[in-house]
Structure formats: structure tokens, C-alpha cells
């Protein structure tokens, strides 16, 4: 029983990270009907940004003297990394997607794959291909409740993920920019006619999604101990499946999908075989596409002919 609870807790924290990344896929898809395959690489760059920022703030000195990295610096690292990733996301949109926005649907999709491959290999060149140990931006504290281990990192992941999602929901539903986003997602041309700056709205959408991915990247590094330039490939794909499972375009759906994928993966690894942990995600993808292609919380859009 404790083992099952432990696996569920592990699955929840992994799922929260998938959820944070899935939000970026879902937002961009909602607005542009584009699957931004470079999103997994923004997540990777976010993790490395956290790594280098922590080093710049002298985390090595804290570690070697046994002191704790101050919490406010940890928050600064998180926010700066999110900012950098937001800038990266907005630049990708500007340089790679905007020029092909009016091209046939396949063109931006292939561009996205190109950007993704470019960033993976640039990452290997710049950061080096070897896995790196993530610095202890948060010192790990363990709690034990009846044999079940909980760490402050897993709790933080959960809290940060929930807080960022709630913030995003507020942003999309209650602010003017969010309202503009929803308008653009319904109809880009009509939104333009209503005086909405569509370019700016799309840019904000990319920046927000990328910032969330960077937060996910840092939490991932803290939780999973090592990061590599290729970490975004599989994690990004799983988050994409999470977005599809929850209903692509739906924010609560992305969160639900992320958590479900995390749980499915962890329980498969724990009780079936770790060899199937990656396969289960894609089995879910196939099942969703066959049975309920709009996803759990997605809406069926009627095409008018």
C-alpha cells in the first residue's frame, strides 16, 4: 500500500511537469492551430538557463561551504530563466513562424520540427552533450509519513505548477490580453478587424507558454537530478500527448492530461515493467485519437461548409 501511494506521489509530481509543458502546446495550438515542436527545446533551454544562472549567483560557493542557497535567489533564478525562455519563445515565433504564418498548414509544422532539431544540436554544441548534475537551487528536505516519502521538491513542483496554472487561467479569462488571445483563437482575421493587435497577442502567447516551460525545466532538473540537451525530446512529446489527451486547446485539459500521463507512466513502470514506461504514453495517444479525438475536455468544433 505504501508502495502504491509512493508511486502515485511520484507520478503526480512528474505529471505536474508534463502539465506545465503541455500548457505551452495547448496555448499555441489554440491560437495558431500549430503544433510547436520546438516547445520541448524551450523547456530544455529553460533548464539550462536555471543551471547557468544559479552558477552565476555563486551556488558552488554555497554548496562547498554547506550553506543553503537563499530562497529569494532561487526565486530570482526561476523568474530570470522564465524571462529568458519567454524571449526565446517570442524570437522563435518572430523568426521562424511568422514568415510562414499564411503558408499551408504543413509548412509551419515542418518549420517547427526544423527549429526543434536546430535547438537540440545547438544545445549539444553550446552546453556539451554530457549529462549535467542539476545544482541544488532548493535544498532537499524529506518528510516521512507512514513509510511514504515526500520531499519539499515534489511539494514545490506541485505547488508551483498549480499556482502557475491558476495564474494562467486568470490571465486568459480576466485580462484584456487574455481576452484578445481568446478572440484570436476563435478567428484571427475577425479579431484583427475588431482592432486586436494579432501579432502582439501571438507573441505574448508564445512568451507565456515558453516561460511556463522554463519553470517546468527547472523543476524537472531539481526532481530528476540530471539534464541533457536532448531532455526536451521525449519529455516534450509526452507533454504533447498530455495536451492531446486533455483536449488540445483546453487549459484545464492540458493540466488533467499531464497529471494522467505522469500517473500512467509511473504506475506502468512500477507494476508492469519500466521498459513500457515510454510506450504507455503513446498507446494512450493512439487510443485517444481512435476513441475520443477531441480529448477529455476538448470541444468538438463544427466545420461549416
Amino acid at each position, binding site marked *: 500500500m505504501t*508502495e502504491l501511494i*509512493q*508511486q502515485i506521489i*511520484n507520478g503526480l509530481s*512528474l505529471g505536474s511537469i508534463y502539465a506545465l509543458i503541455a500548457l505551452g502546446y495547448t496555448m499555441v495550438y489554440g491560437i495558431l492551430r500549430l503544433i510547436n515542436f520546438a516547445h520541448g527545446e524551450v523547456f530544455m533551454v529553460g533548464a539550462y538557463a536555471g543551471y547557468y544562472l544559479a552558477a552565476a549567483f555563486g551556488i558552488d560557493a554555497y554548496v562547498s561551504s554547506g550553506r543553503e542557497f537563499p530562497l529569494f535567489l532561487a526565486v530570482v533564478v526561476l523568474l530570470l530563466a522564465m524571462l529568458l525562455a519567454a524571449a526565446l519563445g517570442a524570437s522563435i515565433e518572430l523568426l521562424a513562424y511568422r514568415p510562414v504564418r499564411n503558408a499551408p498548414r504543413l509548412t509551419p509544422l515542418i518549420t517547427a520540427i526544423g527549429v526543434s532539431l536546430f535547438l537540440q544540436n545547438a544545445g549539444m554544441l553550446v552546453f556539451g*552533450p*554530457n*549529462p*549535467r*548534475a542539476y545544482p541544488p537551487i532548493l535544498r*532537499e528536505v*524529506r518528510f*516521512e509519513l507512514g513509510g511514504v*516519502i515526500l*520531499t519539499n521538491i515534489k511539494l514545490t513542483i506541485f505547488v508551483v505548477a498549480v499556482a502557475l496554472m491558476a495564474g494562467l487561467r486568470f490571465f486568459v479569462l480576466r485580462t484584456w490580453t487574455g481576452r484578445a488571445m481568446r478572440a484570436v483563437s476563435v478567428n484571427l482575421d475577425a479579431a484583427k478587424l475588431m482592432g486586436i493587435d494579432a501579432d502582439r497577442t501571438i507573441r505574448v502567447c508564445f512568451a507565456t507558454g515558453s516561460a511556463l516551460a522554463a519553470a517546468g525545466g527547472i523543476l*524537472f532538473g531539481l526532481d*530528476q*537530478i*540530471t539534464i*541533457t540537451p*536532448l*531532455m526536451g525530446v*521525449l519529455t516534450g512529446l509526452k507533454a504533447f500527448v498530455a495536451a492531446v489527451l486533455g483536449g488540445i486547446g483546453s487549459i484545464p485539459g492540458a493540466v488533467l492530461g499531464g497529471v494522467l500521463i505522469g500517473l500512467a507512466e*509511473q504506475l506502468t*513502470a*512500477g507494476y508492469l*515493467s*519500466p*521498459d513500457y*514506461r*515510454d510506450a504507455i504514453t503513446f498507446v494512450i495517444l493512439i487510443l485517444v485519437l481512435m476513441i475520443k479525438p477531441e480529448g477529455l475536455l476538448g470541444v468538438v468544433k463544427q466545420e461549416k461548409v
Partner: protein
Amino acid sequence: MYIARRSVLSLIALSAVAFASCKRSGAGGGGTAASSGASLSSEIVVGHYASLTGSTAHFGQDTDKALRLLVQEVNKAGGVNGRQIKVVTLDTRGDSAEAANAVSRLIDVEKVEAVIGEVSSSLSLAGGRVAQRRKIPMISPSSTNPKVTEVGDYVFRVCFLDPFQGKVMATFARNTLKFDKVAILRDVKNDYSIGLADAFKAAFTAAGGSIAVEQSYSQGDTDFSAQVTAIKGTPAQAIFVPGYYSEVGAIARTAARLGLKVPLLGGDGWDAPDLVKIGGDALNGSYFSNHFAPDVATPKAQKFVADFKAQYGQEPTGLGALGYDAGGVLVEALRKAGSGGPAALRDAIAAVKDYEGVTGKISIDAARNAQKSAVVLKIEAGKPKYEATIAP
């Protein structure tokens, strides 16, 4: 299609011309023909192919440094039968096609009498096939996959094989640590890991122990909490993790985080400074088998460590020590073979017995593998320390 084929043909022709001119300039200083050139030239040319760049760059660099240190010492002491040794090193960039090219070039252009290399088994296989075809003896310093020396009778190695390491850790866990139940966590994407795990399981159960649970992961995984949680539910006294250092480091941290306080056991895939960088304190008290321990007490090893430090300002790795021994075995064989050519040199290497190397006593067996002992290291305060020697 026709045009494409023609351009390919002309490319081949061009490269053949380039190759031929290369060959001429390369042989300029040496003898006239390959057969007589070897015995007439004043220098013995030894080829080394190694990954000097790329993701496994430190493998090749460490080996090359140690090999050059050995050759320098041999030359200072008068060389081999009055002839000086010259080492030519070519970079493989960790790529097996490049390894085959490098060996061809060493034999054709540099006219080497013997080849040393590689670290990675897949590269040694590629290079070994070329050496075998051209009948030039090759010694791999540190490729542990059994297939490497099965290529043919001109391919040797001075290290032990994968299955042996599994046996070593099983013997150590059963007889020294007195464990009854051990869990196995293997990397299913890695033949090395699977080989070690199978050998460990066979030897440990044969010695009266039992395997508590078998779990697996795939190279590149970052989340190991499911496996560790499953192992925690069993009475395992240790976990045998014969993987590579980056995953092992993360597994150790995950185990510590989930409150699983048993030592990890592993093989030479752990031997990298990054292991402790990633695993940190969580690895203290863990054991792994290796070819060499820098703090081992034999005088020859201590002299090697001191000389290496003096020359390069860093401590040698196990791979470096094996490169030194590969060179040592070759020099010993060169002395005995005299000027008899590649076949005599091959026979001399095959006959090496009880050679006192820095990684222990080396005897070449009928399968051209080294019969030698392994060392077990214990990680204490973030540093691997010599713990025991396990004989074959």
C-alpha cells in the same frame, strides 16, 4: 541516375589519387617496400587510434597520454633492441567508420608494425577487422566486450571481459560483504549492462545468494523513482547497477531521496569523475569493480601514478593505466619477436605470460584475452578508494 553514378565514380577516382599521393609522402622517410621496410628502418612505428575528440574524448586522451609516457620511458632506456619507438596517433572521433579508416591509414600510410586501440568495443571491432585482414597485430587496451578478440588471431586485449566483472562483484558481495539478497537494476539498452547483470546473477545464485528483484531502465532515462520504490519493498541488501555513470549517479540520488539506504554495486562503467559530481553523498559506501585503482599499493603502479602526475599534472584513470599496459605488453613482445615481421610479433604477443603491468599480472590466454585480476573500489567521502583485489 547515370550522372549521379558517374560523379560517384569520379569521386572515387579522385580520392584514390589523393590517397596514393598521401601514401608516397607518408612513406618518404621510411623504407622502400612494406615487407623489407619494417626490418630496415631504424624506428619502430606503433599506431594508436583513439577518440581524441567527441563525446568520449577523455577515453582516448587518457589512453594516449599514458601510452606516450610508456614509450618515452622505453626510449630513454635505450628502446627495443636498440631501436627507438615512434607512436602515431589518429583520431577516431568516437565513430566506428572513422576507426576503420584510421587503422587502414596507420597500416598503409604510416607503415606501423602494430596497432593499439580502441577503448569502445564497437570501435575496436571495426578497427580489429581491418588489422586482422592486413595481418598486423592489434592490442585493445580496454574494450571489454567478448566479441572484440573473436575477430581473429591478430587481435588481442590486455583487459578482462564483461562477464568477469559480474562474477567479481558477485564474489565480493557474497564472500566479503556476506549479502544474501541483492536486487539487480540493469540498463536494457546496453549490452554491457545486460552482460554484467547476467554474469552477476549466475555467479551470485551459484554462491548461495538470491536475487531479491530484477528491475530495468533504458539509457537516457532520468526518472528512476518507480524502480527504486519497487526495490524498496523488497529485503534487498544491495543493488547491482552495472550501468554508466550518469544514470548511476541519478539512481543513487533517487535511492537516497526515497530513503533506500543500501549500497550500490557496479562495474567499470562507473569510472568517471562525473559519477560523484552527479551522485554526490548518496554514493558513499557503494562499491564498483575496475581495472585499476590509483591508490593500489604495487610499486610499479605507484611509479606510474607519480610519473603520470609529474608529466601531465593530473591523476591517471583506469583507461590510462590500461593504455600503459597495452604499450608494455607490446614492447615486451617486440623485444622477443626481434625483426621477424608481423607473424612473429603476433606469436610473441600470444605467448606473453605473467607480465607485471600497472593493472596487475597479465597473461594472454588462448582466446587472446588477458587473464588478470580485478580491483574493487569503495566510494568514501566522494572519492573511490582501493578496497580489494579479486583474482580470476
